[in-house]
């Protein structure tokens, strides 16, 4: 097994674990962590893609690396917005949930 294949499989495993967590965990913070796990997997795949540039005579293809940097910045910004929303939600209602049923109850779900 070459290092590239190993890294590619690791990336795929991270993406799979992340999707599992993002869909099945009920708590938003855990969903956010799962999203970051997918992000790491995707960036690893980009890293493997960059190795293919070696065929064209470069040591590495710089374009996917530039994309990874952009992607990391975007994922960081996304995480920051999500954390800000979760924090604000916990301050406003002490009840951090995405369950739409909670918000239609008469007391607004704040007391539970």
């Amino acid at each position, binding site marked *: 097994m070459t290092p590239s294949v190993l890294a590619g499989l690791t990336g795929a495993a991270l993406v799979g674990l992340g999707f599992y967590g993002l869909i099945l965990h009920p708590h938003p913070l855990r969903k956010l962590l799962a999203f970051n796990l997918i992000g790491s997997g995707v960036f690893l*795949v980009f890293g493997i*893609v960059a190795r293919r540039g070696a065929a064209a005579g470069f040591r590495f293809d710089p374009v996917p690396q530039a994309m990874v940097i952009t992607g990391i910045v975007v994922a960081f910004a996304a995480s920051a917005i999500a954390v800000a929303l979760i924090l604000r939600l916990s301050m406003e209602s002490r009840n951090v949930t995405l369950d739409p049923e909670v918000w239609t109850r008469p007391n607004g779900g704040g007391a539970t």
Partner: protein
Amino acid sequence: MAELGTTTPGGYLLVLAILLPLGGMMLSFTPGGRWAERIALGSTPFGFALACAIAFDVGRSGKPIVYAVGGLAPPLGIALRADGISAVMLVAAAIIVAAAAFYARAKFATPEGVRESRSSLTYWIMLQAIWAALTIIFVGGDLFNLYVALELLTFAAVPLVCIDGRPETLAAALRYLLFALFGSISYLLGVALFYGAHGTLDIPLLAQRVQATPVVWTAAALMTCGLLAKTALFPLHLWLPPAHANAPAAASAVLSGLVVKGSFFLTLRLWFYVLPALPAEKIAIVLGCLGSAAIIAGSIVALRQARLKLLIAYSTVAQIGYLFLVFPLAAGAQSWSAIGWSAGVMQILAHAFAKAAMFFSAGLLAEALGHDQIAKLGGAARVLPLTFLTIALGGLSLMGLPPSGGFSAKWLMLQASAASGQWLWTLPVLGGGLLAAGYVYRILAPALSDERISLVSSPRRSQEVVALALTIIALALGFAPQAFFDFLEIGRPLAVRLP
């Protein structure tokens, strides 16, 4: 294909169209407060003029206009391109953003002497950010560039949902964000696979190189799933109704009318521009079935809503379903695919204008009556005639009655399904129209009754006129001449079968 990589004479217009809202957004941060409002309002006429100039240029030359950023042609550089559909979408976005900005002055204006508030600053900045992101999506020519634009669009749309800070709006915004993050990261993984397989992300270059290999199918599937989550196609629509119904009306109109169309536009780009050569009949049928399910399920749930804004939001879920009928109806290079393509674009435009007007009216109604419970609308049309005229005319377009853009879209869809022998698609189109008539009737019937109702405050005439103007555009689309449909064909690659 070489001409799609070099700058054409009008190319600088595309740069200006992106820079105007982006510059306005940056500038609004600096002086802040009431300057943000002035900048946003002041830039809308220029944005509209630029969009018209781009459309004029595309129409005159009959070819897409291209700008190679930094003078570097793809695959080394990145190109911006505007073809027929991009130009039309740019004009529509400019009109709706301008309408939203004028409508929002009632709620988010800060006249001299009033304390500046955080929510109005957020509104004006995010409105310009959405406009900038949409412009990049409509003219972007590189899949990674489009990923960044898609993320910008999400980051601008999410704060608008929770602008008033109530816990339920925060939860709606958070759910929207999580769905959107799922969508964008799937899209990004697809982009990585495309780059790995073919070494370019430029749309025309990639279209020449793709082949029906497992990598391409996986990448296309990941990107499509991601975009469907962002477009809120059934069954990934769960985030949309609470998010769009809880936002202030001036924001809901932009979210429902334009923002979901951004990710749909990328789905069109992916299948009709990047992958026209793939034998994708089965995928087109799957997308068409999901769209049909969205039409039926969205309309039925809309019929059961107690709140007007939620009803309109579920109607968006249903109307998005129609958009996905484009995939089976416009695929390939047959004689009927042009009709299917026109139908899809017409549906985007008609829904954008009609839905923005409906949300504006729902906002006026909620403010004038102090609530938006459909059961308590008795007699409201007597005291708010202009608002209800707008709702009725917008509803006409949603149902697909002539003369309206919605009618043209549905009529063309029926024509395309008849011409292509895919008769089954006529059922959701016709059934959805009947169900839409049902939910529009649910709003109008009690409002036109003889009951007496008192107003909490009377609506501003200027806001009512803005909403009415948008529905009139939605109706006027029904009179679009053949030249308009020919314009939409500019730059659309026709399917070339793989050897």
